[in-house]
């Protein structure tokens, strides 16, 4: 899967989980500081990415992901 497609789907998931508009999500946005994700929503994002891309993510490593572009890279690595 191309990174652009991953990015588009990542943003779609973020918008759904955090209840925000996709246009508000830029690549370097930090999930907590910029997008306002709380602890539960952070877990929800991990679960949503898993479902969207049909992958398994390590909890502790996944929670180290801070920004949208980090998430795209992280998922891209798993999908390789």
């Amino acid at each position, binding site marked *: 899967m191309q990174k652009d497609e991953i990015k588009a789907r990542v943003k779609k998931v973020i918008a759904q989980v955090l209840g925000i508009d996709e246009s508000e999500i830029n690549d370097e946005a930090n999930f907590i500081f910029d997008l306002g994700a709380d*602890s539960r929503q952070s*877990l*929800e994002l991990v679960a949503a990415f898993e*479902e969207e891309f049909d992958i398994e993510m390590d909890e502790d490593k996944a929670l180290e992901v801070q920004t949208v572009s980090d998430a795209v890279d992280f998922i891209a690595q798993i999908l390789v």
Partner: protein
Amino acid sequence: MNYRNLTPDEVDFLERNRCSADDWADVMVHPEIDLSRIQGVRFEGKVAIGKLSGTLTADDGRILSSGIINSALQNCTVGDQCYISDAGIIRNYNIGDRVVIENVNALATRGESYFGNGIEIEVLNEGGGRGLVLFDRLSAQLAYLLVLYRHDNDLIDALKSMINEYVENQKNSKGTIGDDVRIFRCNQIFDVKVGSHAKLTGVLSLENGTINSNEQAPAEIGAGVIVRDFIILSGSQVKDGALLTGCFVGQGVRIGRQFSAENSAFFANCEGFHSEAVSVFAGPYSVTHHRSTLLIAGMFSFYNAGSGTNQSNHMYKLGPLHQGILERGAKTGSFSYMLWPSRVGPFSAVIGKHYVNFDASDMPFSYIEEVEGKSLLTPGMNLFTVGTRRDSAKWVKRDRRTDPDKLDLIHFELFSPFVMQRVLAGQKILKELYEHAGRQQEFVKYKGLFIKRLLLKRTIKYYQMAMKIFLGEQLLKRLQALGNVENSEQLRKALKPENEVSLEEWIDLFGMFIPKSELTKLLEKTKNGSLNTIESFYRALRGVFEKYDDLAWSWTAALLKEELNIDVEKIGGEQLKQIIDEWKENKQRFNNLIMSDAQKEYDVNSRIGYGIDGDETVRDLDFERVRGNYETNGFVRELKRENAEIEKLADEWNKKLDKVF
């Protein structure tokens, strides 16, 4: 003690020292008494006075010469080396040795009294039906049975019969002030038994109660306190304007700062400050510290109340009969509200206001949040929070009970068979919910709560992590007890459980973990009269308490069979290493997640308001000076150290097992 009557010359001497008596023949004294130490004393009824010699120290450091000054004594015995001054009236008391009583308006036993023993208080259900009989040997375990096992009439009758026998023995028309008691500046104390070494200072009113106290664990009752119908146990403090009516205060409890409570019981190491409690059944380590908190008609254990915590049962129609259950380790956030009846599972956190009746008992370590008016359950989320880790570590360290005779039996383990059975149940329920949920669903409903469908699968993993950690912990505890391992046969023999291997139900008996079968055996013995005194019941209970490690291992063996199809008596080296490796991996991951939670306290959001008049550099410097930094934080360092130890221990055992198998 061989007291003697006064001689006519001695009576004359006392009268010249402003003393008087109804009948001097009723006044007996120690053979070596120094009568110059008795001045301005009125004697009524039969009074006996010990040897008045030596000095004592007042609470403000003054040196007091033993003696009785400006006081009235009616039907009292006074021990040796006491100092009694300005006591308006002391009536019907046996006073021990080295007691100081100064500036007390009235200290009296008014006819026959049980001194608070035998009082029944309505805990948990305000409207009654779960009456708890108070007495000064009441333990958390016995109280739990009395309050919650109402379905078993025979048991309740047997327990009450034992208690009644004990209570009857406490009846006396004379109260007791034990040795070395200090009573300063108190208003009125009626029908109160005071144990040795207790200190009562500035009390407004104590009525109908017992204060257990001893040299190792003195009790302290402080200024402005008003307490009626009570039992206070050793090592406890009730101070600073506390108002208690119909209350039990267990060992090592702290009550103060105008806390008020009625019909409530607080077991070992509870703390009640500022707030209010009504019909509260508080197991060990339950704490409420904030003025705006009302705890009502609930059972709590290892509980922490956030400010403004409140519960109510205003939906009732036939009376306030509802009840709330918060299991071990539950906590409530600031201004949380719950509608009773509801039940919160072990080690769960309740945040926000919940207007539904819910039951989350099979979902331990959960967050129960209010999100857009819904009560949202996130199972397992509280497993890897700083709070859970800190709480479980602090309880052991904060056991304030210094009395060698500890009444409440307490197990501190975070992961126990009791909690793990809930983890198993939670896992099973979550799997079922996941299998039946459609992808279009945002939520699934569960016993009054909503769970985000997306989180079902992930939260099952949290419970699986906990299970693997538990299995490894139990195995390593067993292996560590072995020390050196010679061969595989010796190892398998050591792993053989002493008790029946069964995944049976475990109960948290208000602090003590116990398999249901063991409790049933004990209760049968109680009902058939084999255990027929409080002390024999306690001895039997302690016997089971001390077998915890063995009983937990038997349960673990059953779990290994069930979950991994491993028979511990035939276990192989690779299987053992697998359990240890999975323990290592999950325990370290678990710690990493807790560290990740801790790291949030150092992020930019946590720095809001720091460096108040400066730029970002000033903000960061101010923050670091005040809060330190993540890397040097003691809690974080402890977790890192633990991770290193986990690595070392796992390696050590893997090497040992390689040699043996």
